[in-house]
């Protein structure tokens, strides 16, 4: 036999080929079944249903709405969607869910703000049974393709999956490569190096700030938490304790103050992301810490003076840890919806591999799927350089929640936002953080008891 394999005769070859052919014929249905899995999935089973969808106003929602026609052709389900500005959407969601009868079947949730609210109010349907049901989930959906950090972000403490992590925003550092080259500097690897670089790049006589980031209360919290993550800490521990007035939190607040006050542009105390973006885009700042979702206009020649000069750096490592602050939106089904199964078809269709890739290709933000994040197709023909996609992928690996996962997130942002702003007016960081912690502690305790 072995000699037959090594030196096959003509007869043996013919016999083996025939056997292989027969085996192939027997196996064909399985292969074809696999190949046709997508086409055999019954997308039409809820044809005629009408879904109401509430979206947040942003470029990603534009894409979802653009895919609606294709969805209706595939499923026969009619979709009526509206885009509501972010703040108003949060108020609308809160009021409608509290009423017990939301007027929508599907909505977006800002995971960094509404996640715990959703869990406490039992707003959303747990998607686990849907994912496990082969008759409801298309075989090519591949939930495992979502990045681990994104999946964790979309999950509740009890393991339920409220939403699919549709969009992720990683905090990183935009930097002006030309300014760095002029000073002979490399992109900093640590937070200490970043402060030193900001000092060297800061040149008020030429109207150039070494660093710019949000100073406006509420909006400024992620700047502080980005530095705090470098100490390996979040603002609220896993067991619900505030970690906002310890030496690590004070160190992060001091860093926030130094960068914004000593190396920031004038008026940074009132800057939100848009003022920072304008400052950086006009070549008036060497570095800008913010979400990667704000990159699009930087590479637009009609808006930016620094097209082609923008570097995309992963948030540098802190003294004890290396993380990128994570924010994101999830897409899920209202628990009170009467069309949950049809809504699930909508959610999985809008979060499939193709549409997640379309998001990154359109420059509308970072999708939750790894296949889209690492796709060569995403970079090909994109206005963004290779470094942008590398930054996305690297940030995705070290991402950690940028805001505490608590119910009163907005109050947290307000109270600590004011404390941080006060440090820019000269107040002592430790005193301000202690005061803010004392103010916020009863609010947090009450929210957990209620």
């Amino acid at each position: 036999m072995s000699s037959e394999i090594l030196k096959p005769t003509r007869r043996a070859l013919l016999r083996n080929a025939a056997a292989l052919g027969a085996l192939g014929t027997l196996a064909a249905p399985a292969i074809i079944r696999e190949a046709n899995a997508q086409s055999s999935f019954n997308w039409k089973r809820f044809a005629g249903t009408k879904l109401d969808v509430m979206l947040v106003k942003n470029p990603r929602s534009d894409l979802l709405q653009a895919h609606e026609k294709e969805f209706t052709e595939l499923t026969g389900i009619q979709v009526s969607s509206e885009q509501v500005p972010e703040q108003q959407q949060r108020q609308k969601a809160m009021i409608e869910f509290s009423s017990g009868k939301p007027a929508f079947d599907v909505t977006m949730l800002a995971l960094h703000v509404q996640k715990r609210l959703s869990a406490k109010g039992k707003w959303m349907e747990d998607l686990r049974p849907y994912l496990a049901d082969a008759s409801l989930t298309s075989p090519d959906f591949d939930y495992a393709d979502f990045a681990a950090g994104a999946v964790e972000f979309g999950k509740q403490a009890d393991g339920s999956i409220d939403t699919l992590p549709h969009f992720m925003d990683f905090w990183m550092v935009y930097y002006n490569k030309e300014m760095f080259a002029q000073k002979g500097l490399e992109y900093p690897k640590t937070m200490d190096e970043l402060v030193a670089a900001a000092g060297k790049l800061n040149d008020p006589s030429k109207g150039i700030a070494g660093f710019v980031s949000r100073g406006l209360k509420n909006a400024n919290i992620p700047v502080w938490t980005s530095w705090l993550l470098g100490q390996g800490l979040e603002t609220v521990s896993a067991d619900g304790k505030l970690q906002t007035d310890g030496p690590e939190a004070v160190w992060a607040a001091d860093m926030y103050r130094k960068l914004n006050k000593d190396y920031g542009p004038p008026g940074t105390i009132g800057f939100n992301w848009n003022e920072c973006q304008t400052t950086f885009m006009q070549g008036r700042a060497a570095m800008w810490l913010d979400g990667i979702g704000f990159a699009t206009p930087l590479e637009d020649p009609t808006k930016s003076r620094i097209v082609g000069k923008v570097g995309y750096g992963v948030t540098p490592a802190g003294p004890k840890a290396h993380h990128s602050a994570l924010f994101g939106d999830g897409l899920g089904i209202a628990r009170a919806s009467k069309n949950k199964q049809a809504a699930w078809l909508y959610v999985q269709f809008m979060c499939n591999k193709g549409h997640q890739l379309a998001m990154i290709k359109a420059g509308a933000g970072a999708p939750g799927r790894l296949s889209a994040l690492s796709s060569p197709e995403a970079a090909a023909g994109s206005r963004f350089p290779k470094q942008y996609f590398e930054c996305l992928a690297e940030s995705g690996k070290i991402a950690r929640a940028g805001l505490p996962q608590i119910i009163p997130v907005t109050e947290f942002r307000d109270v600590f936002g004011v404390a941080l702003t006060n440090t820019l007016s000269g107040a002592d960081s430790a005193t301000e953080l202690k005061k803010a912690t004392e103010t916020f502690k009863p609010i947090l305790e009450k929210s957990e008891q209620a």
Partner: protein
Amino acid sequence: MTISTSMPAAVPRPPSVAFQHSADFTPRYWLFSLPAVLIIAGVIVFPWLFTLYMSTQDWKIGGGPEFVGLQNFAELFRDARFIESMGHTAYFTILAVVLPIVFGTAAALVFHREFPLRGLLRTVFVMPMMATPVAVALVWTMMFHPQLGVLNYLLSTVGIGPQNWVYDPGTVIPTLILVEVWHWTPLVMLIVLGGLAGLPKEPYESALIDGANNWHMFRHITLPLVWPFIMVAIVIRTIDALKAFDTIFVITQGGPGTASETLNIFLYLQAFQFYKIGYASAVVVIFFVMIIMLSLLLLYARQKSKWNA
């Protein structure tokens, strides 16, 4: 045959049946006002009573109400941000009323005189008033940018250094007043101009004969005669300034820190950001009492300022 042309003597007639009936129906005429009464009860009285009820509850959207009596009010008066926001509201309101009144009256005096292109210039002058407050706020925000805003560029052309405008706790409220003055001075000008147009000429002729100069005529004739119109402008501007929200929220969101947080911004945060409905209702009740008192004061002053008072 003589024909009497005299009117027949009036003979007292007994009340007609119809009249008696109409007298009987009088109470039923009240029914005509019922729709208006119901609407007012539905959209004014009920919300007000409900707000009063909510102000006595510890109520957060998503949870149930719990009666706490006057605890929300007690907590409010211990809340440093609430007290601070009352101070900001007073500061903002006083300047946002006084400055447009002064500039608007001055502008009305100018536009009351005849000069070339007066109609065109008057139209240009009232244009800010036509703009949408949020759009105005967005444009001003761009102009206030400390590095890239046009205002600092204009200052630099006359040798003045850059200012931080709304990006500095010390200058934020005066800068917001600048926007208010620009936006609402034309309204005051129009009201006062209307008053000036209706003034009689005789007092001025008499004053000229008596040797009065322009200042005397303004101080002793124009100002007293036009004062009722200025009072109307003061009432309107006070109401507008007290309820100012859109421009402040768009430009500063109450910041930097809490430096421009007025009562309205504080209220918005409590109600629509923190969803503390009970606490926010207590703010509304206090604000309502303050507005009622101020309105009564202004209405009394307006009544006193009438020409025939």
